[in-house]
């Protein structure tokens, strides 16, 4: 999550790349109950106080530059499936649906900057999908 637009970005909250630069990109293990997917068409992701870093902008994040300790909490919801969305190559196969999605989140960094988004209903999604995937050895 980050504060747009990229040309004037002030904050970029993410977990960093585990083993920069070729490792796991911006993911963090969570408890199974924090991510719920129902009937392969709706989903939710709710995490409180996830430790992340504030890289301040995307380019600095991609270069693993200076960061500050930070924390974010977020609630993301996927719903209102509109159409099938399937994609595949020799490496992966995804079968699911395109949906709408909303987010409400808050964050703060070690410098005392705090942010709280407006209610989830005011957020907008430009692209959202939910589905099942197999890749790599499971492809």
């Amino acid at each position, binding site marked *: *999550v980050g504060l*747009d637009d990229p040309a004037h970005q002030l904050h970029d909250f993410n977990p960093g790349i585990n083993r920069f630069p070729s490792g796991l*990109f911006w993911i963090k293990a969570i408890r199974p109950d924090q991510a719920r997917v129902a009937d392969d068409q709706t989903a939710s992701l709710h995490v409180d106080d996830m430790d992340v870093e504030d890289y301040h902008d995307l380019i600095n994040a991609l270069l693993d530059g200076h960061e500050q300790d930070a924390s974010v909490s977020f609630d993301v919801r996927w719903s209102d499936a509109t159409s099938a969305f399937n994609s595949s190559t020799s490496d992966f196969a995804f079968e699911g649906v395109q949906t709408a999605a909303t987010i409400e989140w808050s964050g703060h960094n070690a410098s005392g*900057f705090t942010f709280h988004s*407006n209610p989830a209903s005011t957020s907008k999604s430009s692209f959202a999908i*939910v589905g099942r995937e197999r*890749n790599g*050895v499971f492809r």
Partner: protein
Amino acid sequence: MPQMAQAAVPTAGLPTPIPGGFHLFGNFYHIFTPPAVKTASADPNAITDFKGVVALADMTGQGKDGAGTTFDFGADMRIYKGVFADSTGHHHDGAFAFV
């Protein structure tokens, strides 16, 4: 961003990054952006050797800082929940958030 493939760093007990991704600033990043995923030819996952449920959402909105100043934000948020094989071939149940 160009789609390429490059060997990822293997780690026992942990998921392995997808082989695909993009090259930028002299580095190779094992992830595809939402616009690339939308083409239906790029993996929405960050983890390879995975089977399970995946959700991705590319979102925008507004909010306020502690002083009451309004900012725009963008968020690419994803769920990966299922079974993955680590670099030794062992299978693990796991749930991950892409933030």
